[in-house]
């Protein structure tokens, strides 16, 4: 009797787990069904490397958006990753408990701010600042990178911090006992040992950046041309969907789903890379 109950409960949980998976399958299949016809019609190469996006004229090239996504994500990583890693080193190695008790939840709080608030703040503070001090229209790759750099901080800080804290005490003690200073220990022992965790945090942070939509729509300018400098406006894959879905119909709508396919593939690649690094780190 008891055995049966256990089995039922086990199977029940299995069914629930399966239902989450089926949602993923449902979404993937749906995006593919909607998006593939357009890719087939335009040709995969022309779709990905096409320079012109003008759905009303039947031109569906998303290369400028791929460049846009990559450039804001790389920009966000350049600004955000060093800051975040320094922050996690501070929290694990330097901060007195009283300070880290305030700083840690404060950084986690950043993750709880809705992205539309980031976008609005960027539009009212960062965009005018860029326009006044650096020139250009203000809505730019730089503005998007700054906003995203802040948004990915909590992800990178918390995962990096956990991976440094998870290191065996002996690493640090051994290094200090050999006469290395605190900084030398951090630089040559702790950071290399926590490398896989830190790399994972960076990749997950970039995944977050490349998928962000709302905040980016507001500060990026959404122009469909290739950005020539970081002060030019640009459009990412996500904002292409976000800004045009309102009125899109027919082939135009399908092309937006096709944009979603490309995005899905990029994010899957990033996540697989993160998994791979975690596994290599364990071996």
């Amino acid at each position, binding site marked *: 009797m008891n055995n049966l109950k256990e089995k039922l409960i086990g199977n029940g949980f299995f069914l629930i787990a399966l239902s989450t998976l089926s949602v993923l399958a449902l979404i993937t299949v*749906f995006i593919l069904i909607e998006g593939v016809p357009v890719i087939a019609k335009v040709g995969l190469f022309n779709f990905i490397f096409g320079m012109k996006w003008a759905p009303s004229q039947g031109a569906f090239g998303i290369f400028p958006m791929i460049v846009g996504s990559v450039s804001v994500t790389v920009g966000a990583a350049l600004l955000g990753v060093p800051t975040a890693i320094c922050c996690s080193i501070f929290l694990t190695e330097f901060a007195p408990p009283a300070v880290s008790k305030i700083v840690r939840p404060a950084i986690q709080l950043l993750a709880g701010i809705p992205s539309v608030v980031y976008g609005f703040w960027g539009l009212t503070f960062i965009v005018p600042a860029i326009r006044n001090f650096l020139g250009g*229209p203000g809505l730019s790759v730089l503005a998007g990178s700054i906003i995203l750099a802040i948004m990915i901080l909590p992800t990178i800080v918390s995962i990096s911090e956990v991976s440094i804290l998870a290191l065996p005490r002996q690493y640090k003690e051994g290094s200090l006992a050999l006469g290395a200073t605190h900084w030398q220990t951090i630089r040559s022992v702790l950071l290399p040992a926590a490398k896989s965790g830190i790399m994972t945090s960076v990749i997950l942070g970039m995944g977050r950046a490349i998928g962000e939509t709302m905040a980016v729509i507001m500060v990026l300018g959404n122009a469909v*041309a290739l950005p020539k400098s970081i002060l030019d406006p640009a459009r990412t894959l996500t904002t292409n969907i976000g800004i045009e879905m309102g009125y899109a119909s027919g082939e135009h709508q399908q092309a937006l789903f096709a944009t979603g396919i490309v995005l899905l593939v990029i994010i899957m690649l990033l996540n697989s890379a993160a998994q791979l690094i975690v596994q290599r780190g364990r071996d």
Partner: protein
Amino acid sequence: MCALIFSMCLLSACGNKTKAGIIVAGSTSVQPFAEALAEEYMHLNPGTLIDIQGGGSSAGVMAAKSDTANVGMSSRELTTEEKSLWYVEIAKDGLAVIIHPKNPIANLTMEQIRGIYTAEISNWGELGGSNSSIHVITREEGSGTRSAFESLVMGGAEITPKAMVQDSNGAVRQLVEDDPAAIGFISLGLVNDKVKALEMEGIAASRENIINGSYRLSRPFLFVTHTEPEGDTKKFIDFTLSAEGQRLLAAEGLITTGKES
């Protein structure tokens, strides 16, 4: 999702038919004004249900033609083929080309605006303004305001891909408010004192000039029905065209023909 939305539309359509309601569908530019009209109409005629749906001008005309909706809304002229349906202009909407109030330029020709939007003219200096590059702002593909601008101003020429794209009248106005080098276009009813509406070939963007036809950037807002309207549909359209309905539309910022006063 399409199927889901479609079936939901169908369901709501059935639901309303039994209550002798009116379904109005189409242009999202006309939608807010139709909603204001419907609200007032339902207030005056309790028991009548009016359901306003979006979808775009073409979808609205199609819906009227296929009887999916009692009334279709269009924010563009009908094509010759579509003109076989019954239609009436409920008001006009003006399109204003706006710049920052500090920009010294007050008047441009259609040619010059086209030049700016094709990126042939890229500096305000070329137009007699200060020496700074022009920040061109447009609406997203598929927007009715954009297609109106394209047909009224661009004449087949393509809007430069370098133009920044915003997805609402409000967002365009906000950017122009903030950026002295920006230019954009919005519904005339939404122009406020923080932006400057350009004169077009010396003619101010005003209600009078749109009614007398001298200011050319305007588009009609149409109600379309399959056949001559009757019953509740006719009552609602009559209300829209009555002095009261027209006053309401004018108060919401549209250009009415002046019958309401």
